[in-house]
């Protein structure tokens, strides 16, 4: 088990070193996320007043779109020098390699969300500090579910010619349940009378999806990558 975590940590450290040096994925993802939120703000905020109940949906749409961009760019980097194959050739547990890539992706998306959430709160007057821990929990659980499947698909598609088209086509239908749970849970927190019970229900559902998706991805990563 310690070998699993050692390999995953090596991959995370390597990914972070590469990203700190290039800032390529963080900068493009962040720029894209801020642009999306601003465009929505021009459409849904009239005379300083946002439309009712749109903040949660805009937050999760932006997480999904920017996450897809980050997944594509991260694995494009592994494709350019075929380094994903070098990782697969190492005598390490292949699920540990997947776990390392997943954690790297989660850290990246968390960084983007740190900027994204206050921006949505500011532009759409969403009460992000009303129940910060519940909101953080929903975001963490939803991001994990999205990234778990996204990392698996992005790794699978690394050598596919039409990977940029196939990734969203495969990813969005699979992660619709995560997005629905994320939006409904967040909306329950953002509404004028917050419904903690409803938010808790959607959070529990997200945790269930996370367990299913992460287990499925760890189980299928090796056969999918060698066939």
């Amino acid at each position, binding site marked *: 088990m310690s070998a699993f975590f050692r390999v995953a940590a*090596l991959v995370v450290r390597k990914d972070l070193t590469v990203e700190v040096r290039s800032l390529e994925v963080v900068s493009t993802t962040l720029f894209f996320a801020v642009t999306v939120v601003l465009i929505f703000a021009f459409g849904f905020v009239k005379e300083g007043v946002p439309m009712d109940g749109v903040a949660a949906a805009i937050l999760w749409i932006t997480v999904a779109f920017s996450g897809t961009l980050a997944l594509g760019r991260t694995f494009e980097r592994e494709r350019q020098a075929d380094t994903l194959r070098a990782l697969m050739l*190492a005598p390490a547990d292949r699920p540990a390699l997947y776990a390392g890539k997943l954690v790297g992706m989660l850290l990246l998306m968390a960084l983007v969300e740190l900027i994204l959430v206050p921006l949505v709160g500011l532009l759409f007057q969403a009460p992000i500090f009303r129940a910060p821990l519940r909101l953080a929990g929903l975001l963490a659980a939803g991001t994990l579910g999205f990234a778990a499947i996204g990392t698996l698909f992005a790794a699978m598609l690394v050598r596919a010619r039409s990977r940029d088209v196939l990734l969203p086509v495969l990813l969005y239908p699979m992660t619709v349940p995560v997005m629905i749970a994320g939006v409904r849970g967040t909306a329950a927190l953002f509404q004028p009378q917050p419904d903690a019970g409803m938010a808790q229900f959607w959070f529990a559902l997200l945790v269930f999806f996370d367990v299913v998706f992460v287990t499925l991805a760890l189980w299928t990563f090796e056969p999918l990558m060698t066939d």
Partner: protein
Amino acid sequence: MSDFDTVSADGVGRHYGRRRALTNISFTARAGDIVGLLGHNGAGKSTLLSILGTLLAASTGVVRYGGLTSDAAGASLRARIGMLGHDLFLYPELSARENLVFFGRLYDMPEAARAADAALERAGLAARADDLVSSFSRGMRQRVALERALLHGPRLLLLDEPFTGLDQASAAALVGRLREEQARGVVTVLATHDLDVVDGLLNEVVFLQGGKRVAAPASAGTLRDRYREAMHAS
């Protein structure tokens, strides 16, 4: 640890849907053998290397590493395989030393940093060890990539176009390095188009055309002559 001194492909094939990339390939390589995979682009050389490297599952047939198969041995078998791909398998944003240390640690080498320094010394790149790989010429990258493939002392070495981008002196140095590995008993399988460079180096040649092995000509000319004859005869 899974060790072996022969590698044999027995009726190995690979298809993608209805397209056959490789059909019924068989050969055996023993300790110290250098096997050349020769053929035009798209002949199936890289596919065969990927199957030998356990990166791709064979659709038919089996590859045996001594008494082991890739399914049975898994990670411990991969620890005995080194591979240099056409795309070099290096992170351009990391320095040469960081690349080697990362892969050394991935292979669970206890002295990865020391091994990386020794490898860079061998490659004649000790002075550039902390430079990013992105700043290297193709030839320098190729030398680092070869050291990466050899870092963990593999028993089976798989090389895809190892002479690409190398000048004459570097190519000669690589041939010398392969002979050293040969003397250590390493089984080397390499795919190349640089026929003049590998003439006299190979113990066995597998000529591939359209994913199938074609018969080696009986004539005793240069490798280039035999290659032409094999490709035209089929």
